[in-house]
């Protein structure tokens, strides 16, 4: 068996971080699309759509992310087909992301004064024109900072994918610990790597808030 130097451990962890980044990116993009649809449903004047979206948000925000991973991995195997950790991790994290982004964006759309809707209607724009030309451009500006801030949450959330055997940063930290018996050092480096990814994002989110 070969020995691992501390430098080896650091490089192994940095290399493992690519899976964390990839999973976050995919989930953030898919979750963004789904979150946008949820937001549209939530603010739409059609009652049933509104309630479906509301129920979805409450249920997803009311269950732990860890449980969503477990449900997506072990729970969905009831459908028969074996589902890979990568697929179920993406599915679970997309669900999580879509619910929170949907809520954040709904908040920014609702923060636009209703006079803006009325003014757009007075110009005889139809519903989608009102939304697309008047409301969304203003809402997007307000939503940028919380959306970027939420990206850090998604990246931290990927660590729970380790529970279903998806080897990303946190999981490889555990694997390395099992070989090296140096949990304090390994987990500290892992925390530093996560910090190095998330901290700039948090700072950017705060900067954007002020502009």
């Amino acid at each position: 068996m070969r020995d691992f130097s501390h430098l080896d451990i650091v490089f192994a962890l940095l290399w493992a971080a690519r899976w964390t980044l990839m999973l976050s990116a995919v989930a953030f993009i898919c979750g963004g699309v789904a979150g946008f649809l949820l937001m549209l449903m939530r603010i739409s004047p059609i009652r049933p759509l509104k309630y479906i979206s509301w129920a979805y948000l409450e249920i997803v925000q009311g269950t732990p992310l860890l449980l969503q991973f477990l449900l997506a991995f072990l729970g969905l195997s009831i459908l028969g087909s074996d589902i890979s950790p990568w697929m179920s991790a993406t599915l679970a994290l997309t669900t999580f992301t879509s619910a929170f982004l949907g809520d954040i964006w709904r908040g920014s759309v609702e923060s636009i004064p209703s006079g803006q809707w009325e003014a757009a209607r007075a110009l005889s724009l139809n519903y989608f024109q009102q939304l697309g030309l008047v409301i969304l451009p203003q809402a997007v500006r307000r939503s940028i900072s919380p959306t970027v801030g939420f990206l850090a949450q998604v990246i931290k959330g990927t660590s729970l994918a380790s529970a279903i055997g998806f080897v990303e940063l946190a999981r490889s930290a555990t694997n390395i610990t099992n070989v090296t018996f140096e949990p304090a050092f390994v987990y500290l480096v892992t925390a530093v790597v996560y910090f190095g990814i998330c901290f700039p994002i948090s700072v950017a989110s705060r900067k954007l808030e002020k502009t």
Partner: protein
Amino acid sequence: MLLSGVWLTLQLSSLAIIFGLAVGIVGALCRTSGNRFLGTVSAAYVEAIRNTPFLVQLLFIFFGISSLGPRLDSGQAALLALTINFGAYATEIIRAGVQSIEQSQIEAGMSLGLTRPQIFRLVILKPAIANIYPALTSQMVLLLLLSSVVSQISAKELTYVGNFLRSRSFRDFEVYFTLAIIYVVLALSFKLLAHLCHKRLFKFMRYI
């Protein structure tokens, strides 16, 4: 069995909320004290916790600290990690609340002859908590959900019990679906409770 899990989940969350709020008040006090050193320590603590995943914090505390010296059992490590985590978020939220209190309120307190601790408690802290109540309670719901992660170090809370039942019955979907329902019910009833308490607790806010 599930009930014993629910019980430990509630126990862990409520203890972590109580201790975490204490940490948060001290942290916010340090941050707003004007003392450079204390302020920096508090800010570093908040940033370090908020920018790393809870799972890694938990594993560091459970395996890392145990390997360095003092032995923690999984329940103690879970409570410590949840407290440290919630404390950081609480610090940030309470700080925002404290800074929302206007200087003139403090001056009014002084001119009424209140002592410094009295001013902090009555003039700053109470209205500050009233201002940040929604943010604080939603953070508490997040903590309740976060407590599921401590199943990873075999603390026997709700998710751990669920995993155990699954390994015995092989009924994956049913077990996890039930767990999901329990968590949703817990989260929603906490929200409802917080909403009901809101009116009771902050009657005095009408006079400010």
